[in-house]
């Protein structure tokens, strides 16, 4: 290949790149298609459903005394995800919702904490936040009772219940 040809090729490549940039700035990426949005929603629902199962005792190492999140927090009530980060007396500092989840797993449930960056923790968060969707975000104290959204009878997550906790006897 001659030096002249190489120069021409470089010139063409630079021109093509400039063309792409120009097109990108004038034509932004098209909005998500309905199919893409459906895929994204399905991925969220899958995570929420996993969170629902975990919340109701599907993962054995989250408890040693049989208690699951759902014992005290049916429909995630009083978990108050929309009030985090906030000061919690058991830590003496401001903590995120994920840490509060792990506190409950390690203390009332006497279990092993979840990886805060893992898919299971994300799923727990997805479930709790989904049942508090539309609630005002109010970081801070929540000594008053707060509630999740109203879930009409039988219109919650119609999955097969996994039960609350585990029993040591068959």
């Amino acid at each position: 290949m001659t030096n002249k040809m190489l120069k021409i090729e470089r010139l063409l490549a630079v021109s093509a790149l400039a063309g792409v940039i120009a097109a990108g700035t004038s034509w932004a990426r098209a909005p998500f298609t309905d199919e893409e949005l459906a895929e994204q929603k399905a991925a969220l629902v899958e995570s929420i459903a996993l969170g629902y199962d975990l919340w109701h005792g599907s993962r054995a190492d989250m408890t040693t005394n049989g208690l699951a999140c759902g014992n005290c927090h049916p429909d995630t009530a009083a978990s108050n995800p929309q009030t985090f980060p906030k000061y919690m007396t058991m830590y003496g500092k401001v903590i995120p919702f994920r840490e509060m989840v792990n506190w409950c797993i390690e203390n009332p449930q006497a279990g092993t904490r979840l990886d805060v960056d893992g898919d299971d923790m994300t799923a727990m968060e997805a479930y709790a936040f989904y049942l508090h969707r539309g609630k005002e975000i109010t970081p801070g104290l929540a000594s008053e009772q707060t509630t999740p959204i109203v879930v009409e009878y039988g219109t919650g997550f119609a999955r097969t219940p996994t039960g609350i906790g585990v029993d040591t006897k068959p």
Partner: protein
Amino acid sequence: MSDIVDHSRRQFLSFAGKAGLTTFVAQAVGINLGMVDIVRAQTGKRGVEPFRFAIISDSHLYSMPDHKFDQQLADAVAQVNAMTPLPDFVLYGGDVAQNGTEDQLVKGSKILKDLKMPLKIIPGEHDWYLDMGDAWRGLFGDETWSFNHKGVHFIGLNSILVRDFWTGAGMTPLERMTVMEMLESPIPGPWGVHEKQLEWLANDVKDLAPDTPIVVFTHSPLWDYYPRWNFQTSDAPEIREILSKFDNVMSYHGHVHQTLFNRIGNMSSVAALSTSWPWPYPPVELAFPETRMNRADPSIATDGMGTQIIDLSGSFEGLVQYQPFEDSLTPFMRDGFKV
């Protein structure tokens, strides 16, 4: 303990006098809960010999040895045994067990045997759906009962009956129990006492005069509170209709694990605290929101739990006092409210 009760009683009388007959300022641990409208009990022709009874409820015992809930039930028993004066008897509001296994029910019955006074008990769904009440009946007897005590007619009903969702689905007893264990389970549908007990109830009260004071005791509330969590009894309207001829009816119930009061027609309704864990209030309006306790502090292991005592007067007025395990920011109406 006796100091608290005596002090509370003095405060109650003081407040009742100031507030008059139709309203009462509920005062608890320095926190004013606001005004509670009271429909004053009609004084029946027949007198009630004043007495006290206690309620323990919802222990949810697990099978693990030395589980923390075992001690919490034992603490409730000790708390009731230490009351001055002693209650004449104790009502247990259901859910001795968590998973309905015989070992859990046996453990509960052993702890409850330490009570100094007689026990009357009705079942909860956690006691029932593994063997459809076989073990429970073997330990505690009939789940539907009535008795008279010092002029008051007491009635106990099994309010946790559901339609058969398991036979058609081919569920095992364990699967059936697992479905029933979950408060927000989408499968079982609303509970009730069902036709047979309604007939029994109608027959039980048919010869009683309208001025007979009635106390009816169930696991779930006899009003439509939050059906999704079965904070209801589906045939409560029929129960209220059967009992509508009476001047005054008091309904006491477990299941909701929280302080709660309501009144419909001639029926006052009072909820029991649990000895195992407190439940949050569902997202509905309450007719008497001032009877709501604060959200329990999870860092205090037994906050939001305890027992309660009811003192019935000669005119069938009840002073309800919640007896929490912990002193906390949670107002428990320890100083009582009148029903």
